[in-house]
């Protein structure tokens, strides 16, 4: 019964989150560009409607199964990733004692979904987008796993409820501030935006999206937004104490914190420049991975001394 309730709330959360993300996606670029922001509220729906009524395109002998499956898989992964996020100690859509491992599996399958989306078109620009995303998506995933393990140490569990409960005294963002930054980078990577958008970038004329139109494109963009919402909720849970907070019910706190992370992610996606993929790959392995090692070691030492 509580599970059904949790699923309902989460679906509501996902829908509202996607709408909010779509609006932010127009408002924040407009803010940076110094253009009027007033159309940000209504424009996303009109754009979605325009996409929905446009016909789908086709290429010469694409892999149709893969092309159809990719956005569906991507969206589903976002929903599954979101489903392990607890709304309160009892209210979890998919209670799992290995929540962060499940989230890791969603990240790994996201790489598969994005690759499939680019590969299936049988066209050069999407193909390049697909391959370069794998080069960045894989090492970025490694970072997030170290960071999540760092969060699991004080909780003595891989479940997200326990991870939230372990933050009653001090939020994980205090324990590993750099971990939050690394996890936000992962968030940009799995939702294909800004400095980590190697699948759908400008220099490939939209990359994996270059050959899709109409409802196919709409579903891909929705899936990207859904993943953004999902990763925001996950960040809020792991680093910002999730549902913990005074007075208000747990899921309201979770929604507020997720919204904060969402704004941060969209802003970061519009604020930082994207390196060419070769440079980013070296950067991930040689700068960020050692940083995540250090972060983990620091959390370990802290627990040994004061834990």
């Amino acid at each position, binding site marked *: 019964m509580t599970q059904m309730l949790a699923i309902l709330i989460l679906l509501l959360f996902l829908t509202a989150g996607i709408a909010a993300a779509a609006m932010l996606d127009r408002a924040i670029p407009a803010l940076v560009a110094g253009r009027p922001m007033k159309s940000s509220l209504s424009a996303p729906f009109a754009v979605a409607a325009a996409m929905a009524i446009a016909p789908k395109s*086709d290429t010469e002998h694409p892999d149709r199964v893969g092309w159809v499956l990719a956005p569906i898989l991507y969206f589903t992964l976002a929903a599954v990733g979101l489903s392990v996020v607890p709304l309160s100690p009892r209210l979890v859509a998919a209670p799992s004692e290995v929540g962060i491992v499940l989230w890791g599996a969603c990240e790994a399958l996201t790489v598969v979904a994005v690759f499939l989306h680019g590969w299936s078109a049988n066209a050069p620009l999407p193909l390049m987008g697909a391959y370069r995303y794998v080069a960045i998506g894989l090492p970025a995933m490694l970072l997030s796993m170290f960071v999540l393990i760092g969060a699991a140490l004080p909780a003595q569990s891989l479940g997200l409820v326990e991870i939230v409960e372990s933050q009653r005294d001090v939020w994980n963002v205090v324990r590993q501030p750099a971990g939050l930054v690394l996890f936000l980078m992962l968030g940009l990577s799995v939702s294909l935006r800004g400095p980590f958008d190697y699948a759908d970038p400008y220099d490939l004329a939209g990359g994996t999206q270059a050959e899709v139109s109409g409802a196919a494109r709409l579903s891909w963009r929705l899936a990207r937004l859904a993943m953004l919402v999902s990763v925001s909720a996950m960040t809020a849970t792991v680093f910002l104490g999730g549902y913990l907070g005074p007075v208000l019910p747990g899921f309201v706190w979770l929604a507020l914190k997720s919204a904060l992370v969402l704004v941060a992610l969209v802003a970061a996606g519009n604020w930082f420049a994207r390196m060419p993929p070769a440079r980013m790959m070296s950067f991930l392995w040689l700068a960020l991975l050692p940083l995540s090692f250090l972060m983990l070691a620091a959390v370990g030492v802290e627990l040994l001394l004061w834990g």
Partner: protein
Amino acid sequence: MIVLVAATVAALVRSARSPFAAPITEPQKVPFLGGGAPTTHAWQRYHVRYYPMTLLFIAFEMEMMFMYPWAVVFVEEGGKAMMEMGMFLAILSVGILYGWREGVFRWQ
């Protein structure tokens, strides 16, 4: 349950039919190159420029399998856990350093 709902929603959106849908003709199917027409299929023996990195990656990622259970018992086991995992990670870091020296993390 979640999987079913999400997959259905996404499938419905993906399969929405446009009121303007018409049979797609051959010239509409030519891959987009900004006007140019390709001579061959794009599917090819694609030269992945980071293949040594992926090999290093799958070996390195294996360590995650050991790290998750380790994280659960870390507080319980204390210094011993720290030391053993430190040793394990140090061993694997040697691999990464070696890879770096061999230029694995560059575009080949």
